[in-house]
Every structure is written in structure tokens, then in C-alpha cells.
């Protein structure tokens, strides 16, 4: 389960970045075509973040689609999965572009009073 370790990486990176301040929210970009499940990230996050400045933070996951073009009808296609086919029924498509993001986009740190 590579999501568990990705979450460990996220928690470590963000904890260091926050310098001990509580973190309210982390926004991730996860490509729909990366081999990473958003649900698995969420599942792991609660457990891994416990006892860190990220405990209780919201993990917002922005799912980014990939794009392709049908080689039969020429339509541009938004891909949510590597197994998606064109609306015309063809699976003959150009190699997917994008949709492979695995990025920490931003986080919200609580300002000390």
C-alpha cells in the first residue's frame, strides 16, 4: 500500500514546514491516472497525523483528470481512469497527458496569537 507511505511523507514534510504550528488544512493534487487512491490517502491520514501538528487537519484532495484524444473520432477526452474509453466506443486513444500529479499544493497553518 504505497498510499500509507505517501501520507507519511506528506505528514513529515508539512510538519517540518509548519514548524510546530497547528495545521488546519492540506491541499493535495492527485492525478486520476496516478496509481494512488484518494480514499486510501484519507484513510491513512487520520492515523498517521495523530499526535503531529497535522492532527485534525482537513485533507483536501483535488483530483486532476488526464487528457487524451480519440484516434477514431478525434474527440478530446477527459480521463478519470486509464481504462476510460471514448464516447464513440473506441478505446484507440492517444497516450494520456497529465493526470499524474502527486503534489502538496498548499497548507493552512494556524497563526499564533
Amino acid at each position, binding site marked *: *500500500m504505497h498510499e500509507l*507511505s505517501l501520507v*507519511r511523507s506528506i505528514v513529515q514534510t508539512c510538519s517540518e*514546514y509548519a514548524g510546530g504550528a497547528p495545521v488546519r488544512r492540506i491541499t493535495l493534487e492527485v492525478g486520476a491516472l496516478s*496509481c494512488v487512491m484518494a480514499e486510501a490517502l484519507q484513510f491513512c491520514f487520520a492515523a498517521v497525523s495523530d499526535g503531529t501538528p497535522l492532527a485534525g487537519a482537513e485533507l483536501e484532495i483535488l483530483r486532476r483528470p488526464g487528457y487524451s484524444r480519440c484516434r477514431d473520432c478525434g474527440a478530446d477526452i477527459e480521463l478519470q481512469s486509464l481504462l476510460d474509453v471514448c464516447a464513440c466506443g473506441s478505446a484507440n*486513444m492517444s497516450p494520456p497527458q497529465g493526470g499524474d500529479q502527486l503534489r502538496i*499544493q498548499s497548507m*493552512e497553518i494556524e497563526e499564533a496569537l
Partner: protein
Amino acid sequence: MCTTCGCSGGARPLLTNTATGKTSRLEVAHIEAPIGVAQRVPRPRAGVRSTAAPTADLQHLERDLLAHNNTIAARIRDWLRARNILALNLVSSPGAGKTTLLERTLRHLRDLGDSTAVSVVEGDQETRFDAERIRATGCPSVQVNTGTGCHLEASMLAGALEELMPAPGSLLMIENVGNLVCPALFDLGEHAKVAILSVTEGEDKPLKYPHMFRAASLMILNKIDLLPYVDFDVETCLGFARRVNPDIAVVQVSARTGAGLPDWYAWLQAQQSALPA
């Protein structure tokens, strides 16, 4: 700890030069390593502190979780390109026949009088069994034992290349850890990934593990000598592979009997010829 698969273990990968028997521990910089506190953007402080509920400070990190690996992979790619070395990353599930195919290929190249023109990096969790088989062919090789790690990372290949020092203009074969999932995510700086699928595994594997077959430039369908004995429809398998990767090239071989291997050698030759001189 492997940061991507969750496989734990404190031991660093072990590198063995099969010619000298010299072993060393690889320095592996994990992507979870401290990422430079100095890069932190200073948080602006308001002149007047509010006594209301704490406000939030939005920090844009834009940090790629695989950035560390990909940086090293890019360096390796440049290094290989400057030396005109063709590097192939062989990936498959355990037992698909990577090592047998490799042995046969190395012997073929040796018989062509080309034995110094190919070297091998062997990736396995444990044992030097495969490296011993490769050494018997007379080709220079190093073994990377990942311990509990389930894939090779670019930093491991960088360490292996320092030890192996492949000759300019040569062919470098990287035999990844047998695993159809994790190696797909890790760029090693190779020219191409070659996925090996044996007919005993079932024709549905390209759909079950689409990321690996998408990442591969070539699918080698191996053990075709066993086709009469297994329920494996070749056309269905090729259809599945092309569905996840319309541009994937395919060769059908038996590394045991040698059937179809000229197609694989021709593909190799074409890749080498296509390298900028």
C-alpha cells in the same frame, strides 16, 4: 523505510559488485528526508494581533511527492545520454522470466562478440542468486539488494552506476524487483521500461495493472511454449495491453526455447540505432 510502499526496515540497500565480491551499503536519500527548512517561506506577522479565533496562514508548497527521485532520475538520464548508453528497465511480476530472458540475451550478444557492450544492474530484495546467473554469462553486473524495499529507486541506480561504470556506447539492463505495482511509479532515468508478462500469469494482467503497462514501451509476452497448456488468449491479452497503452510494442517469445527472440533482439537493435550518435 520505503516511503511509497509502506514497507519498513531500517537497513539501507546493499550493493554487491559481482566481479569483485565487494559489498557496500547504499546511501539512500529518502523523499521523506528533511526537505530544507531554509526553503520555508517566512510567515508574515500582522502588526496588530487579533484576540479572535486564530486565523489561518495559507502556505503554497507546490511540492511534488516524487520530486527527490525524479531529480536524481533526470541526472542519471543526462549522464547516460552523454555516454550514449541505452538503459532499459525490465519490470514484471516475480517469476515471469526476467532473469532467464536476460541470460539468454547476454549470451546472444556475447556470441556476437559483443560481451563487453552490455552490463547489468540486478535488483532483488534478498539474495545474489540472479547476479550469479548473470555473472556466469561473463557480463559485468552489480546486485542491489533492497532489503524490504519493493522497487528500485533512482538513488539506488545512481549508486549502482558508480560501481558499475558502464562503458560509453554500451547497453545497460536494469532488472527491477519483481513487482507489477510500485516500480511503475519510480523513474530511474532509463530510456524505456520493458514489461515482461508470462502466459502463466493470465491475459488480464495489463488491465489489472494498467499503470505498469502504460509506463512500458515494450511488452514481452514470455513462455509462449506453454500456450498449449494454459488458458491464455493472446489476442485478448494484446487487446488489453493496447487499451491501456495504444503505442506499446509487443514481442512474443519463449526465453527457454528461444522462440521469437529474434524479434526482441531486433527491437533492442532498433533502440540502440535510434540513439543520437
